[in-house]
């Protein structure tokens, strides 16, 4: 995979991780929102349950009063309470049905419990009715007996425990919800601070609300304990009533503790709460002597007087002042909790929105930075590649410019230093080859010069020597003639031909080393026309050797015309040289555009080259195969140098005995596209 692809992948992964994080946070926010939202119905449920308990107490009290006094007013109260309790139970059932589904099938339990409560209340009403019927029949004693034996035990042991248990469970539920909210807020760092404070305040508001309703219920129980005693004046009932004072003290103490805790938390309005609490406590304490008075009246004046006293001097002020005051405090507290919840929800939503926006902005920033960085890297790499292509093309003086002072510019500097050092070595080697070749010429002058001098000197003295040799014996004369006319000319001939051969080799080396001195002159060349012209110069050889040529369509290329012509000529010449005797020669010249190169194919059906020999054909003075063809072994070495000078490549594919294909690749795409 290319670098750009990899970097894009990394950007994608970062983006995906950030999106997942954002999704998780959004989910957490919604879950928190739901939790906070579920406190309100739970609280309403709790309030309703307390209301039911309170009304059940009141109804029981009214029943006791009516059974003893037979007053129509208390009968009317009974009917009123019954209607109210029916309504409240109806509300409870609706509320239970509407409760948001929570864990542990809590909602189903609430629905079941509220049904149980309704059924229980109906049973209680039946018992109450039978009590009333006895009363109506004028049998007060029977009515009292039913009250004591059936109604009160059922009320106390079967009926009242249901809402009391439900309230306990609901308040546990509310505490659980707050705990969970606190945990969830922990995962929402940007709401945690203010959010947690609001949760703590709301939770403590709920504690306050519990304390107030517990106090109210405690008062109801106390009054009922008192009524129990008034009915029978039994010691045990008195003890229970008396003991309940301590229970009340504890309830007030709990309430006060909540206020103190809230004050410690720095919640506003605690002075007001404290004042209201003190007011309630004062009212309650003012009622305590009346309760004792009721006991005294019961003991001295009897049951009816006691109950009358309670009705007028205890229940009336409680109904008029204490309970409404408590309810007012409870309402205010619930209102406060509701306000806190709304604030908390606003905080969570606003905080989550801010957090999500921050994450989105951060993601965009990260993706932008990484893609910027990746573009930088890819651009730098492209630049390096471009530069090395130029250097590969033979321009060792090319300097890759790479600003930025990072690792890439260091790498570019290293490349530049490397190509310069290569150029130095190259130049050294080239001038070494040049001067060696040149120095080899000096002795050659002597070889040729003195062999020529020798020949002319010999020619000059030959007649004299031959004439003089006439005086010698026939055998000696023959030897002199052989030396003068055969051996010496033959030796001189070998010296000459070797010197000529050496001269040709030296010239070839000089020519090769001079190629690099030549400046390139690239232009748009119609290579097909060039090939035709080249073949024309070989027309005579081709005809003589019986070689047929096929010339495919060749593209235009950007090249040095002269160099390309020499390459073509050398390759055609090479194909003509190595024919298989007796086989009609074939040479085909085609070209192909591949990627960023144009490749020319010179395919012949000549003798071919053994696989081991293929790399050697491009070496200087190296000739492979049978040495039956004239040549210095220069053509292909020279061609390779010419191709390299133009930044191209040349290679050979061959099968021994079947033919060879020489492939010449020049850089650059199809010239028409490029130059367009």
């Amino acid at each position, binding site marked *: 995979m290319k670098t750009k692809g990899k970097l894009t992948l990394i950007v994608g992964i970062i983006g995906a991780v950030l999106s997942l994080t954002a999704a998780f946070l959004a989910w957490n926010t919604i879950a928190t929102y739901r939790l906070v939202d579920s406190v309100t119905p739970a609280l309403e449920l709790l309030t309703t349950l307390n209301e039911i308990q309170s009304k059940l107490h009141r109804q029981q009290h009214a029943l006791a009063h009516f059974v003893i006094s037979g007053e129509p007013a208390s009968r009317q109260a009974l009917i009123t309470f019954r209607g109210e309790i029916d309504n409240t139970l109806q509300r409870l059932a609706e509320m239970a049905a509407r409760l948001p589904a929570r864990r542990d099938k809590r909602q189903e339990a609430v629905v079941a419990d509220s049904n149980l409560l309704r059924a229980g209340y109906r049973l209680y009403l039946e018992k109450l009715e039978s009590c009333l019927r006895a009363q109506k029949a004028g049998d007060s004693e029977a009515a009292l007996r039913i009250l004591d034996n059936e109604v009160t035990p059922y009320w106390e042991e079967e009926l009242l425990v249901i809402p009391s248990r439900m309230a306990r469970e609901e308040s546990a539920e509310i505490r659980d919800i707050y705990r969970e909210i606190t945990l969830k807020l922990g995962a929402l760092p940007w709401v945690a601070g203010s959010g947690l404070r609001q949760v703590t305040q709301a939770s403590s508001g709920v504690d306050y609300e519990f304390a107030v309703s517990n106090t109210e219920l405690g008062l109801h129980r106390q009054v009922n304990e008192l009524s129990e005693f008034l009915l029978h004046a039994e010691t045990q009932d008195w003890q229970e009533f008396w003991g309940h004072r301590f229970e009340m003290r504890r309830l007030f103490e709990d309430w006060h503790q909540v206020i103190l805790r809230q004050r410690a938390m720095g919640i506003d309005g605690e002075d007001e709460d404290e004042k209201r609490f003190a007011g309630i406590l004062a009212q309650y304490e003012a009622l305590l002597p009346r309760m004792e008075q009721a006991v005294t009246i019961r003991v001295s004046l009897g049951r009816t007087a006691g109950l009358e006293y309670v009705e007028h001097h205890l229940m009336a002020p409680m109904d008029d002042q204490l309970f409404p005051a408590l309810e007012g405090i409870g309402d205010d507290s619930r209102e406060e909790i509701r306000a806190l919840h709304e604030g908390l929800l606003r905080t969570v939503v606003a905080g989550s929105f801010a957090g999500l926006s921050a994450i989105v902005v951060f993601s965009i920033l990260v993706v932008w930075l990484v893609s910027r960085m990746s573009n930088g890297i890819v651009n730098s790499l492209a630049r390096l590649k471009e530069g090395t292509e130029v250097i590969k093309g033979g321009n060792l003086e090319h300097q890759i410019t790479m600003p930025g002072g990072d690792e890439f510019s260091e790498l570019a500097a290293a490349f530049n230093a490397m190509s310069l050092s290569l150029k130095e070595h190259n130049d050294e080697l080239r001038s070494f080859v040049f001067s060696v070749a*040149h*120095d080899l*010429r*000096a*002795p*050659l*002058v*002597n070889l*040729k*010069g*003195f*062999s*020529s*001098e020798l020949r002319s000197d010999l020619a000059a003295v030959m007649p004299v020597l031959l004439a003089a040799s006439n005086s010698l014996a026939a055998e000696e004369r023959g030897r002199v003639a052989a030396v003068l006319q055969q051996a010496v000319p033959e030796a001189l001939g070998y010296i000459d031909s070797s010197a000529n051969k050496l*001269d040709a080799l030296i010239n070839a080396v000089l020519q090769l080393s001079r190629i690099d001195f030549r400046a390139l002159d690239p232009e748009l060349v119609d290579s097909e026309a060039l090939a035709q012209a080249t073949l024309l110069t070989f027309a005579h050889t081709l005809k003589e050797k019986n070689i047929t040529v096929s010339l495919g369509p060749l593209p235009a290329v950007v090249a040095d015309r002269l160099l390309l012509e020499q390459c073509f000529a050398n390759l055609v010449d090479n194909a003509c040289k190595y024919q298989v005797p007796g086989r009609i020669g074939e040479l085909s010249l085609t070209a192909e555009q591949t990627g960023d190169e144009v490749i020319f194919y010179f395919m012949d059906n000549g003798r071919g080259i053994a696989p081991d020999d293929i790399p050697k054909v491009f070496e200087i003075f190296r000739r492979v195969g049978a040495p039956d063809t004239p040549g210095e072994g220069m053509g292909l070495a020279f061609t390779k140098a010419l191709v390299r000078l133009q930044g191209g490549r040349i290679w050979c594919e061959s099968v021994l005995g079947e033919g060879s294909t020489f492939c010449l690749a020049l850089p650059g795409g199809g010239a028409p596209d490029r130059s367009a």
Partner: protein
Amino acid sequence: MEHLEHVTILLVEDDPGHARLIEKNLRRAGIVNPILLLDTGQKAVDFLFKKGEYAESEQTAPFLILLDLNLPVLNGFQVLQAIKGDPRLKAIPVVILTTTDNPHEIKRCYELGCNVYVTKPVEYEQFTESIRKLGLFLSIVRVPDRQ
């Protein structure tokens, strides 16, 4: 001004074979002047500036110099530079006679003040012809007197 007969030809050439061939062919062209062979650039400079082993030498005749370029110790360019940079010697005609036909070197020699540049061909027929023509040329050249 002197006729060539009184002039000594200094042949600065490290290859004795070349020196011999040059001398032979000059003689064939009718040059009869004394030819003094110096086989290093250093000897040429020492001789002309009367230093080292030539400190006590008597030099009365005017000179004409045939100078090779590829020489040991001091090369032909350095010798040429020494001659043409010296006010007393710069009037001496210098003929560069070398195997090199590199255009850069030819240009450099003329810039340094050489008077003629002749290439020694590798082919002996051409070599003979070149030296013969040089000889004919030298025979009509006039050389300034020694100061």
